[in-house]
Every structure is written in C-alpha cells, then in structure tokens.
C-alpha cells in the first residue's frame, strides 16, 4: 500500500517537475537535458505579447477576486439574515454558479452580452450628445464579470462555512453589553471571519488567473495568460512555454499555500 501511495505522489509531481526542469534546458529537445540555461526565461520576459497577456491576467484576477471577496462576504453575512425560503433560493443559485460547466458559463455569457450590447449600443449612440458615443464590447469587463460569478459563489461558500462555525454567544455578549450592531461586527465578527475572506480572495485570484475556458469565450480582443499559452501550444511546443508554465505554476503555488495557511486553524483539512 505504501508503494502504491508513493507511486501516486510521484505520478502527481513528476510531470510538473519535468516542465520546471526543462524550462532550464539549454537545448530544445524534451528528451534530453543538455545543460542548464535561463535563456527561455529571457526570451519569455522580452516577449511583449506575453507580458501584455500577463498584465491583463493580473488586472482581471485582482479585480474579480476583490469584487468577489467584498460582495461574496456581504452576501454570506446577508444570507444569515434572510428567511429560510429566500436563503434556499440563494443557496441554489450559488450552487448552480459552481456546478454549471465553465464552457456553458462562457457560452451563455457571450450570447447574453452580445445580445445586450446589440440592444444598448444603438440606444447609446442615439442619446449620446457628443460625436463619439461609447461602444460596449467584450473585454476586461466581461471577463471580470464572468469570473466574478464563480468566485463570488466560492467566497460566499467559504465565508458562510466560517460564520456557521462562529460562536453565537460572543456576539450576543457583545450586544448585551450595548455595543451597536456595527461595532459588534467590526470588533467581534470581522476579525474572526477575516482569514476566510482572505483565503477566499486568494482562491478566487487563483481561479481567475488560471481560468482558460470562460475567458476564451468572453475575452473579445483581450488576451489573458492562459489564452496566450493555449494559442502558443497550438503553434507548437517550445521550451519557452515551459518557462511560462513554470511562472504560472509559481504564482498559483504561492497563492494556494498562503490560502491554506490562512485556513489552517480549521480542524479538518479540506479540498
């Protein structure tokens, strides 16, 4: 059994390790390691398209994760105050946001936005006083919005679980001592749920930064890092991709480790 488990761990990490190793390969071949070199990183970093895609990804991931952290936390707190039936509706919708395949979310958002833009743009053009009416189109906004759906559901789920584990007595004690609700929230509740909000933010960032399929549909002319990597892979596997892949891995690895550290006080390790 030990041997089998060891084998599974080797299986999980070998492919990743190979990509990292060969990103430092002096040669082009995937089957022989000729010598150590950082040339592919130099090539990647001086690639303006790649850097543009990286910048787009960081903007999108940061914005959608921040929106998700704020609105998701608000929703988690607000849902506590709702009646059972309304809460069940929210639970169902958030579950749907997580369960519906990304490819369907991407398509549906694309279809809806194109229709909505097609309706709004002529109206905007008609009522706009200046010569150059703004034209709504796919881009940063649509990627952030579509990622925001999944990540908001994710944050709500995480924060709600934390609130459920929170002691009621301490909140009641605070209000018995005549603290205003807002004071109780700021001094008692917020400090306790803060780690889960931060963890939610980091996981949301990771999701958005790594997502390919949703962005593929709604990105318009903007390219995110996964879209760039996907397009490069289709043009042919090169060692430069190994270098980019290693950098992507490093970013998500750092974020997930911090997120797990923040959530570690929970007694059971979770997925």
């Amino acid at each position, binding site marked *: *059994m030990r041997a089998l488990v060891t084998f599974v761990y080797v299986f999980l990490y070998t492919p990743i390790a190979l*990509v990292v190793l060969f990103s430092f390969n002096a040669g082009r071949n995937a089957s022989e390691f000729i010598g150590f070199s950082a040339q592919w990183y130099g090539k990647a970093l001086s690639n303006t398209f790649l850097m543009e895609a990286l910048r787009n990804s960081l903007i999108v991931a940061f914005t959608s994760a921040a929106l998700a952290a704020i609105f998701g936390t608000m929703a988690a707190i607000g849902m506590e105050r709702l009646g059972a039936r309304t809460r069940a509706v929210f639970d169902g919708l958030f579950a749907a946001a997580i369960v519906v395949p990304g490819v369907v979310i991407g398509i549906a958002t694309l*279809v809806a936005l194109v229709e909505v833009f097609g309706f709004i743009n002529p109206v905007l053009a008609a009522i706009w006083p200046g010569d150059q009416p703004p034209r709504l189109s796919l881009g940063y906004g649509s990627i952030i919005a579509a990622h925001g759906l999944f990540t908001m559901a994710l944050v709500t789920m995480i924060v709600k679980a934390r609130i459920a584990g929170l002691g009621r007595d301490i909140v009641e004690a605070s209000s018995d001592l005549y603290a205003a609700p807002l004071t109780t929230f700021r001094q008692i509740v917020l400090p306790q749920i803060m780690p889960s909000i931060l963890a939610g933010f980091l996981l949301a960032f990771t999701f958005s930064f790594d997502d390919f*399929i949703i962005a593929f549909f709604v990105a318009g002319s903007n390219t995110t890092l996964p879209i760039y990597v996907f397009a490069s*892979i289709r043009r042919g596997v090169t060692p430069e991709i190994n270098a980019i892949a290693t950098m992507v891995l490093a970013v*998500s690895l750092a974020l997930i480790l911090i997120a797990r550290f923040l959530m570690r006080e929970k007694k059971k390790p979770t*997925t």
Partner: protein
Amino acid sequence: MTLTAQVKKRLVTIALVAPASLWLFVFLVLPFIAIIVFAFGERGPVGGYQPAFTFEQFANLGARAAAFVNTLVLAPIGAAACLLVAYPVAYYLAIKASPQRRLLLVSLVVVPFWTSLLVRTYAWMYILGARGIPHLLEYIGFDNVRLLNTPGAVLLGIVYGYLPLMIMPIYVSLEKLDRRLLEASADLGAHPISTFFGVTLPLSLPGVMTGIALVTILLLGEYLIPQLLGGGKVFFIGNALVDLFLQSRNWPFGSAIAVTLVAVVVVVLLVAMRIAWRIAGTRQVDLV
C-alpha cells in the same frame, strides 16, 4: 423592536445581498435564459441567430452524437479510474499515515488541484509528445509509437487532472470514521479484509459518491484535456461547443447542445443526490 428598526434591519439585509443578487441575475439567470431562447431559434443566413420557435436544433443533436458518446463514455470511465487510484491514497492518508505527516501529505494532494489545469495537461502533452517518451522508446528499438492523441492519453490526463478532487471527499469521510468500530470488528475476530468490506467501505460511501459526482460533472464539461491530449480525434461536448460558437458560428445549435449538457449535469447530480440520500449520513464536503 420598533417598526423603524425592523425596516432598517430589512434594508441592511437587502443592501448586503444586492450586489451578489445582481451578479447572479445578470451573469447566471439572464445568460441561461438567453441560451434557452437561442436553442429554440434558427440560424441566420450568415451565422448568428434568427428568432423562431422550432425544435429543429434539438432534433439535430444526432449530428454531434460522437461528442456525446465520447463524453458519456469517457467521463464515467475517467471517474471510475480516478476512484480506483484515489481510494487507497485516501485510505492511507486517513487511517495509516501518522498525524504529523498527514497534514503535509494532504496538502501535497490538494495543491496540484489549484494550479493551472492547462499547465498540468500541457505537461503530459510534452511528455507523451513526439519529443518525449516516444523519442526515448526509439533508443530501445520501438519506432513510431504514438501515445498522444489517443483515448488512453485523454484518460491519463483525466486521472491526472481530477485525482485530487476524488481523493479529498473520500479522505474526509474516512477520517471521520470512528476507529473504535474497526477495533471492535477486529476484536470480534473479523479478518481485516472483511472489516474493510463490512465496515470501512460502507461508511466511506458518502465520500465516494461525492467524489464520483464532482469528477463526473466536471468531466462532462471538459474541454482542455481532450483538446490537448486527444488532438481533435477524441473530442468531448465541450470541444463541439467551442467549434460551434467560435469556428462554425452556429449559435442556435450550439445553444441547444449547451442546454442539453446542463440537463445531463442536472440528471447526474439528482441521481448522485438520490443515491447519497439512500446511503444516508450525507456530509457536505468543503471545496477548499
């Protein structure tokens, strides 16, 4: 509580859930209504959509039967393969591993799941590709071995990508298992194997069901793994959707396929919940 205080409390609640409600409506409910409307429409002369009410798109689903067959065959097989590999690992982590090492070992399972699936799938493309293992095989005399773009490669990618998601729920249900039951079983003279089949396995079934449901549902919408490792030869519904929306631009037909896919996902979910209900003791598994 006075009336104004009640009104105020209500207003605060509404304000708290308002942004998320807006998001759920505009970016989940509305888009979903849109694809349902499209699915009953017609294709315009230059692609796009033409309003209509017809079942033509759904009647035509057979044109993409191969994608449905591949998905509906490979998703359950993939989930089953994940389960076979995942169960011993989850068992080891929950029952055999020492508590000090457990946290590290569990982290090592979780971390890959949260790193880019694109990169992890690419890694296999790199390994199975012409300059990877087949190139090494040439040294020992096996020429022209093709590993990439086969169903086997897709299955391998599936197990690799979704193994952590299968291990975790099983681990959680095994970890909650009361050890005294295992001791009691042994004290009563049961063979370890009959303890496993009589006690451990039945009590971990909720975790097994959760794992199968999660992995199957995610696989039904998979695009990257068949695209990169199946190379257009082994394609899923997700690949058909990308083709219909971004290449052939047949949005009404694509919408009909998307609606059907969601229906399949819902059926799988309901069946899984029903089974979980029956084995009772359902436990929720956090995703993080």
